Each structure stands twice: as C-alpha cells, then as structure tokens.
C-alpha cells in the first residue's frame, strides 16, 4: 500500500490551494485525488469573469483562476490522480501511524479510491484534507408540487451542459432561487438566445451577491421577484409552464397571487450543500447549520489529522476565500506531519480552548473552537448572518470583554462575513487556572 503524508480529496480550488501551501511548508508526500478528467473542479464550468480580485488583484474567469493553481501544483510536482473516485475513507485507531509513545493519538487513515486505469485500491495517509466541495439542493428538498417532466435542472447542471458540453437546455426559462449560480445562469442563458422570464426568490432578500444581481439581472432587464416561490409545474413530458405565487412572512404561498409563466425550462438555484458523505463515513462530526465538519483553528475536524476547507466545510461566495482557507488547511496538515515526525505530543500544548458561540444574528462560525496554543497571531473567523442587517456591528466578547468590533453598512445571508481575532487580545482575557472559555460573536445595532 502506498503511503502518503497528505491525501487531498478533490482537485478543485480548495484542494489545489491546500496542496500548494502544504508543499511550500515542507510537506512532500502529497497526493490529490480528483474524480473529474481535469483538475479545477467547478471553476472549469464557471467561464464568466470576476474571480481572483482578492488573490491576484485582477479579474479572471473560473478556468483562468484554476489554471494559476494548477500550474503551481504542476511546478511543484505534486501527484494528482484524475478520473479517480474516492469510495471511502477509514481510520484505523488500532494501528499507529508513526509508532510513537501515544499509539492512537494520530491514527493512520486509509483512503479507498477507484479509477478505470488503476481499479480499486487503498492508500494510507497520515493526514487527509477534505476538499470535495458541495452539491446543489434538488427540487425534492423543497417539496415543490407538480409534474416531473424533462426541463427541470439545477442551475449548475445547466451551466455544465451549456459551458462544457455545448448544449442549450431550454429556450424559455424560469429560475427559482437567486443563488449566485442561478443569477449567473440567467445571464448565460440570455446570451445564448434563451428568454429568461423571471427569477423568483422565496426569501425577502437575494441569496446571491449584490454585484451578480446588477450584472446578471438588472443589465438584462430580468426581473427578480422576492418572496415568491413555485407552486406548480405543469407539462407531462417537457415543462410547459411554471406557476409562481407570493409567500407570506412564514414562507407560505398566498392564495390569489398565482401567476403562470409559459416556459420549457425551470432552473433551480436553491442552495448548496457541502458534500460530506465521505466525511460522515469517517466519523467526522458535522454541523447541522452548515452541513460541513465542525473544525478548530487549524481547520481540523474531530478526527485528528483530518482537515477540511472550501465548500465542503461551508459554502463560500468567493473563490479567493476558498483558496485562503484551503492554504491554512494545507499549512496545518504539513505542521501535523512535522509534529508526527518529531514525535511531539499534542496534549500539553493545547490546554486552553475557546469555544466560539454564534449569537443574535450570527448563524455559525468557522472555526467553531480555538486552541490558544495553536492559534496564529491573527485568526480569521468566517460566518454568515441569518437576516439582512443595516448599519450594524459585529462584535466579539470574551469573558464579558469586547475584543473585536467592526461596523458593517449592510450584511445579508448571501454574503459571507469575517472577523479577525488577535491572539494577544485573547491572551489578555485568559485567567490562570481556567482552561475553557466561551467567545461570543454577535450582531449588535449600536
């Protein structure tokens, strides 16, 4: 069985950035496993521009952005096996990875993969970086009534058909959900000669980025109907019409507000779900809010040596932040390997643990807990809010003391927020004899 220090599941933006960062921090035996025929992940079908403003200070298309990282992976000679599906990840707590004094503290992981060329095989890994990305919520998850004809696509599937396979899934289109992919596809379908009749959004606010509303809907005169949903789909073979209705504050359709649109296609952009079947099989604890793993400051899950980053951890809006987060996971995996080689113990270093508690308006945070000893001088905490907030503050409190405050003119669920915590400030709040703390992050009006 081949042994690796780091096995990365997925060669999308997260996996690629994690590999590069791990390599640059000294890790060598790195393997990336990718199910598609080329690296780059979902970026390969995102042929619009707007990627990389933070990372490269220029606007790139999805494939261009991916290409920058693919080049870096290739330059470093990092092994990447394509057309390879990871079937299972297991952890052997009985066997020790490096035969140190603490046998089960750093168990070996076993990754089962399969491809046409190599069949089914296992590799052993000291660390695993989960970077599988996310998938789209299907119609079923919304319990939309009606028929089940052809012509109902998730927006990402339609994007693949148009951008990678060269086919047009339909000519008259209704879009449900104002997630970014839905907005991007409204423009894309329009540019390909289809008529996009309307974008309906269940919530009273958009699920996507403001700039996408402007550039993909407003610029093309496509109307966005907030607080609307699909209440019926007709057409027994192909979609013939879609009926929308306005919803009340409890998101229930209001009788009498139905409007029927004759169309042949319904695109759904109704949310993304981190794809964590492999993680769950491995025993990784998942957050009910994000559906992603619960991680510490090192982006390490409850299974030691298993890290997570990118959309498998929590759904991002901007790939730049995926790359940044993944680089941190890569560095931490490399550090974990180094500690293993130095046969360093874990227990003594991580005495003080701070749980981060999302409160009043904050839905979750990544990370969800911080070991002070492992914390970098500055820790980025990413999160989403549950509603639209104007001129509010994001504040962090530790032991009743405010340690961070940031004013935001507008916050919305569709845009990820972040707050930076300074290690020295946390240290100031720590008292001798207490090893566990709770750090509150909340939205405040004043």
């Amino acid at each position: 069985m081949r042994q690796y220090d780091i096995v990365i599941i997925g060669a999308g933006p997260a996996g690629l950035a994690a590999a590069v960062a791990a390599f640059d921090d000294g890790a060598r035996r790195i393997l990336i496993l990718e199910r598609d025929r080329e690296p780059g992940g979902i970026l390969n079908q995102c042929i619009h521009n707007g990627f990389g403003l933070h990372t490269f200070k220029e606007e790139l298309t999805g494939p261009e952005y991916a290409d920058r990282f693919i080049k870096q992976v290739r330059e470093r000679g990092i092994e990447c096996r394509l057309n390879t599906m990871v079937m299972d990840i297991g952890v052997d707590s009985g066997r020790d990875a490096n035969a140190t004094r603490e046998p089960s503290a750093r168990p070996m992981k076993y990754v089962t993969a399969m491809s046409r060329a190599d069949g089914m095989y296992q590799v052993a890994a000291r660390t695993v970086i989960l970077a599988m990305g996310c998938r789209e919520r299907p119609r079923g998850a919304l319990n939309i009534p009606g028929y089940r004809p052809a012509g109902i696509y998730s927006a990402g599937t339609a994007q693949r058909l148009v951008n990678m396979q060269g086919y047009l899934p339909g000519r008259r289109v209704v879009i449900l959900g104002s997630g970014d992919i839905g907005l991007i596809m409204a423009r894309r379908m329009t540019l390909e000669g289809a008529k996009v009749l309307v974008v309906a959004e269940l919530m009273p606010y958009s699920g996507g980025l403001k700039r996408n509303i402007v550039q993909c809907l407003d610029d093309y005169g496509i109307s966005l109907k907030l607080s609307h949903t699909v209440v019926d789909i007709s057409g027994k073979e192909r979609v013939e019409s879609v009926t929308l209705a306005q919803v009340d504050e409890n998101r229930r359709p209001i009788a009498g507000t139905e409007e029927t649109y004759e169309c042949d296609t319904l695109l759904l952009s109704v949310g993304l779900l981190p794809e964590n079947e492999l993680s769950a099989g491995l025993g990784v604890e998942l957050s009910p809010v994000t559906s992603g793993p619960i991680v510490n400051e090192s982006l390490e899950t409850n299974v030691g040596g298993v890290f997570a980053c990118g959309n498998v951890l929590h759904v991002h809006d901007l790939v730049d932040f995926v790359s940044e987060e993944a680089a941190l996971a890569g560095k931490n995996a490399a550090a974990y390997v180094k500690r293993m080689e130095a046969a360093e113990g874990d227990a003594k270093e991580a005495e003080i643990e701070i749980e981060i508690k999302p409160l009043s308006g904050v839905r979750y945070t990544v990370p969800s807990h911080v070991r002070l000893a492992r914390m970098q001088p500055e820790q980025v905490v990413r999160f989403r809010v549950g509603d639209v907030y104007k001129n509010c503050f994001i504040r962090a409190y530790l032991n009743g003391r405010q340690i961070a405050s940031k004013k935001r003119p507008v916050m919305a669920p569709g845009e990820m927020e972040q707050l930076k915590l300074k290690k020295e400030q946390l240290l100031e709040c720590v008292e001798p004899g207490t090893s566990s703390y709770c750090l509150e992050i909340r939205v405040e009006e004043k």
Partner: protein
Amino acid sequence: MYDVVIIGAGVSGSAIARELSRYRGKFCVLEKEEDVCCGTSKANSGIVHAGYDARPGSLMAKLNVEGNRRMKALSEELDFPFRQTGSYVVCMDKESRPKLEELFERGQKNGVEDLQILSYEEAVREEGNLSKDMDSVLYAPTAGIVCPFGLNIALAENAHTNGVEFRFDTEVLEIARQERGFVIKTSNGDYETRYVVNAAGVYADVFHNMVSADKIHITPRKGEYLLLDKSAAGQVSHTIFSLPGKYGKGILITPTAHGNLLAGPTATDIPDKEGTNTTAEGLASIFEKAGISVQSLSLRNVITSFAGLRAHEDGHEFIIKELEDAPGFIDCAGIESPGLTSAPAIGVMVAGMLQEKLNLVDNPGFEPRRKGILNPALLTMEERNRLIKGQPAYGNIICRCEMISEGEILDAIHRPLGAKSLDGVKRRTRAGMGRCQSGFCSPRVMEILHRELGIPMEELTKSGANSRMITGGRKEAAR
C-alpha cells in the same frame, strides 16, 4: 397472427408474459410508453403485503397471499432486490383494538402465516422508534419490500429472452373482433391475435369497454409519496402501517429495498389517467400524518416526491377473467394494491388460463433464470479489480450518490429490452436516484446514451416521447 397480445408492460403484463413464455407460442406485449414499468408499477410503495387486508374469499386475498409466497423464490430466480422485513400495523388507541383483531382474523382466514398481535413493549424491542402512545401492533413477518422497477424489469427481460416480443411507443387505439380473435389497431400498425390480455392499469376500463357491453369503471386513485435520503433510513426497520381508514392503508413509513425511507401514500380520486402530479395539499398531509405511529420521525431529508395512480375498480376487486360477451379477451383489471405483491401469482393464473384455452405446449428452451445488473458494491476488492481489468468501465463512477459505474450503465443499455432514456437508465441502475437527484450524473448519462445508441443529443429524452432533455446546441456550437 399472434396467439396472445398483452396490453401493458407494467408488472402484471410482464408477469403474465414471463409465465406465458414457459409455453410455445407467438406472444407480444404492446406498451404505449417507451419502456416497461412506466405507469402504476413504477410509482407505488414497493411493499410485498402479507395478505391480511383483502376480504377473505376474494381473488385479491388469494393472489396476495400466493404472490407473497412466490416472491422470494422469484427474486432469486430473476435476481431482483427483495427483503422480507416484516410489517407492523400500528393501532393507536384501545378503542380501535377490535379493528386490529379483525385484521388478524382476516389474515388467518386468508392463510397469512405467523401473524401475531404484539403489545407496545414487545413491538418496541424490534422497532425502537414506535410511538409510545400506541396500543398494540399486528406483526406480519412474511411482509417485505421489493424494488418495483427491479421486479417489473426482471419479469419483462426474462419474458423477452424466452421469446416474447415487446412493442414500445405503441398505443392501442381500437380493438375489433374478427372471425378468429381480434385486430388491435395501434399507433404503430395493426396486430392480429387470437387472445387479448388487458393489463392496461388505469386504462383497463377503456379497453374492456371497447369490446364488452358489460362496462367497468376504473378510477385513478392518486397516491403521493415522499422519498427520503438513505441517511434517514435507520428510523424504521419494518414497514409501518397505521390501522386502515376509509381510504386504504393510510400513511405508511417503510425502508425501501435500496435503503431509502419512503412515506406515503395519500389517496385522492382524480379524473385524469395521467395525473401523476404531486400537490401541495397531498405533500402537506404526508408531513402531517407520517409522525403518528413513529415518534420523532424526521422528514427533513426528502430527496424527491412523486405520485402514482392506483387502478381502482368500483368493486375493489381484481377482475381477472375471460369476458363472457367477448370470448378471447381476458381482463386483468382493477389491479390496485396489493397488485405488485400479487403479480407473480397473477402471471401464473393468467398464463394458466391461456395455456388451457390455447392448448399451449411447453417451451423446451425456457430459461427460468435471469441475471440482473451486477452490483459491484457486493464484490470484494479483488473481485472488483478483476472486473475492472476486463471491463474498465466498471472503474468509472458516473453517479456519485449511488456510486453507479459506467459498466452498470452500459449493461442497462445493452441488455434485453435495454434502457433508451435517462429514466430507463435510472430505473435499471439507480443512477440519478440518489440525493442529488441526477444533478451530477444526468449530463454524463446523456453522453453515454448518445454514444452507445447513436441517439442525437437533441433527441435524448428523460422518459420517451417529447421529454427531450435539451432544446439544441449552444450558439457557437451550432455554427
């Protein structure tokens, strides 16, 4: 001139065809859809009922119990998924206890084996999530779950292998009696036959009434369902019914043969024989009623909802007989629940009738066994690698949710009565049936169908006819 033409390639028609193929003769199945298992047979609970529901002495009762008894051996012979998981009928209050006892007695009369009435304490040992508020349970160990597509497809494939012809996209328009037998006019030419078997599901009344003065009436009774992700399946391990009310068996919760969880069906009589749309009210009522018998049941992980139509005949009984005023025309009508369970017995019964009428002799080449599509997940790593070495397509996963390989999809396409559409592939392999509901694999399956069958991408369908997947090429691609 055919000896027998069967109308409908659902589970009844296919079971009859399979049993008929034991004999020598010229047999044909006409199906208006592009594939087998496209009507009532594809959208139901997938339950193999024990047989305590039907009225003692009825044909329904007899065929239910007999079908149940035959199912296991048939599943081994024809290699389709079937598990004898047992069923619970939950009685929620003491006042209803006599109704439960009545079911028990009916079951005894119908010949259902091993029925027991259990107290809550006894029942909860095997089914931990039963509602604490319940009174008692009727436990039927002989009940089970079957893959409805698997059963129907296996029967049809085996019939076809043994010489029965199948004509798809062939809608019966008219049936006329002639001197010897019938002429069936279809959208796809005329078929002359000595015998007709009417296994047309919700349309059986239409064909019956074409030849008989003694009219029957079939009402499509809609049943809506919620299908949950496999991660939700651990909540129950038996099929859990609530004591029947006026409209059949109420909401049931059951694991499926493939490890999902299913909740439903509703029961609404509708006029439209194609009305397989789900409704807001229907879905809401499942959410409302599902939790009655199972405590803290979570219906969060719904991956799809669907509706099927039961072919309810006014007399609520299977009508399986040769018509007195139309000799040569055999009805197989009113096959509503427990129709799926009864199918193996219906097949034997109708084939037996035909054998007698036509004096059919044994088909010496009859092959009773059929091998289903290989499930590589059941192989050891070594066996799997040997398979992939010989056929690398088995190493290429196409459906990530159900982990279905290209090899399985190629098998589904190229085997007898193979898949021609996305739904055809889905029903045979489960590709597209998982939690992402084909978002990932549909473009990939489209490419495979296009490549293997030479169907232009623009002509590829979800389920035949006009259910085309795409409307054309992209602008620059079209140039």
